[in-house]
């Protein structure tokens, strides 16, 4: 903290021209020292940011080197097209999709849903729907509450009955998000948490639903699926 004050102090000195008097030849960078118009604390990139970046990089490298020293990457037998392992699992970041294959035909689980997800992610910032506060519940809360639960019921129906089995990993997070959202519509004022919940925007809730569903699907695929994609308990049957 003290060091920073000195830093800012010497910046003042530089501004006054005390430093640039010594160096006469190149002066093009001098306006960079003129300080910011706002009174927000600023620091020099060198050393403050660069040292932090270096420490972060070294910490990451150290972690990865230690992991690489103590654990070995898997190497199975040579590829054999005639012998299918059971289960044949994709890398972890695709296990959510592979889990969806359990419920939907490949065209839905492998093309339609991931395609829609990527498009939805890309277009999120282009929707000005309730991006900033005033929040979702500022006007006509009851009507909006009705619309919300209508939408949730419609989505639940799709995810329960348009698939081979109800996709609980998607439906349950949807309901949880719906309940958390609805607390904002209640006339009850509540404390800090209630205020925080009430001021979240609609994109926040949609993103939260995506995030929780994707995590649940991936974790299910990773920990709870065994031969024939049957449900297994990791601490009893191990992780496949």
């Amino acid at each position, binding site marked *: 903290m003290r060091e920073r004050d000195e830093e800012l102090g010497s910046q003042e000195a*530089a501004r006054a021209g005390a*430093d640039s008097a010594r160096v006469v030849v190149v002066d093009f960078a001098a306006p960079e020292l003129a300080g*910011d118009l706002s009174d*927000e604390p600023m620091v020099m990139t060198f050393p403050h*940011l*660069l040292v*932090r970046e270096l420490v972060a990089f070294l910490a*990451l490298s150290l972690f990865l080197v230690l992991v690489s020293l103590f654990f070995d990457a898997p190497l199975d037998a040579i590829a*054999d097209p005639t012998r*299918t392992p059971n289960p044949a699992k994709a890398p972890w970041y695709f296990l959510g999709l592979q889990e969806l294959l359990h419920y939907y035909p490949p065209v839905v689980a492998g093309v339609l849903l991931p395609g829609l997800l990527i498009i939805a992610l890309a277009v999120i910032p282009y929707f000005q729907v309730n991006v900033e506060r005033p929040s979702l519940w500022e006007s006509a809360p009851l009507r909006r509450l009705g619309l919300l639960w209508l939408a949730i019921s419609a989505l639940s129906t799709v995810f329960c009955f348009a698939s081979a089995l109800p996709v609980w990993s998607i439906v349950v997070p949807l309901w949880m998000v719906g309940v958390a959202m609805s607390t904002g519509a209640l006339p009850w004022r509540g404390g800090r948490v209630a205020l925080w919940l009430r001021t979240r925007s609609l994109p926040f809730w949609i993103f939260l639903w995506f995030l929780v569903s994707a995590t649940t699907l991936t974790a299910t695929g990773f920990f709870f699926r065994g031969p024939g994609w049957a449900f297994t308990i990791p601490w009893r049957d191990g992780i496949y």
Partner: protein
Amino acid sequence: MRALTNTRVFRSVFRHGFPSSNRNRSLVVFSSFFLHFHPVKVRLRAIRFTRTFYLGGLCVACFFILTVSGIFLMFYYRPAVPHAYHDMKDLVFVVSSGTFLRNLHRFTAHMMVALALLHMAWTFLRGAYRPPREFNWVIGVGLLVVTVLLSYTGYLLPWDQLAYWAVTVGTNLVAATPLVGQKIKLLLLGGHAINDNALLRFYVLHCVVLPMVLVLGIGLHVWRVRKDGGIHLPPEVRTLAPGATEAMATTSKEAAQ
């Protein structure tokens, strides 16, 4: 140290003196090709660890580690059908530190995908996707897809059972695309089954095409962050005491996100 920085040779390379003055500290950043994507001064709020957890920067760090370890791996690897797997075995049992090299590359790859996902989630939750940064968010989504594809194309290269069947699952999903699915699968694999051709295609995508796309994308992504005035920061709430002037306003607390 100071004397060294005053020599003619040092000055011919770095063009600035010992960074004891803020002028020279600015020149360290400003006159360096490698650092010029940074401004010379940054907001203190912007560089706090808990602001970003440095997730984007750590993705780039992972990419750097992957590039270096990947180049070493390329010295020991042939993308052909029986050789690929035998080269893996050689790497584990013959090459000095080969196991470590392979472990590092593989675990860093998983780390990069995880960090990119976390970076996206955190960027969203902090509201940094909002205008004027909406297109940079789209570029970020593209970078995430490229990162996953890089990891996925690398997954086939060891040519073990794990690799073969994971890629089988993936390419069968691609083939399920209406109308063009079979054609894309044929293009990707260079045949109807995963064999020599597929391995070579995945190798070229993994080592040449996708890294180039990623470097270009990262450049664009970071450049746009700079153009939008650095990382997204919520506006500050200033409390103005009654009778106080604007200059006396104290920065109290950031606006809740």
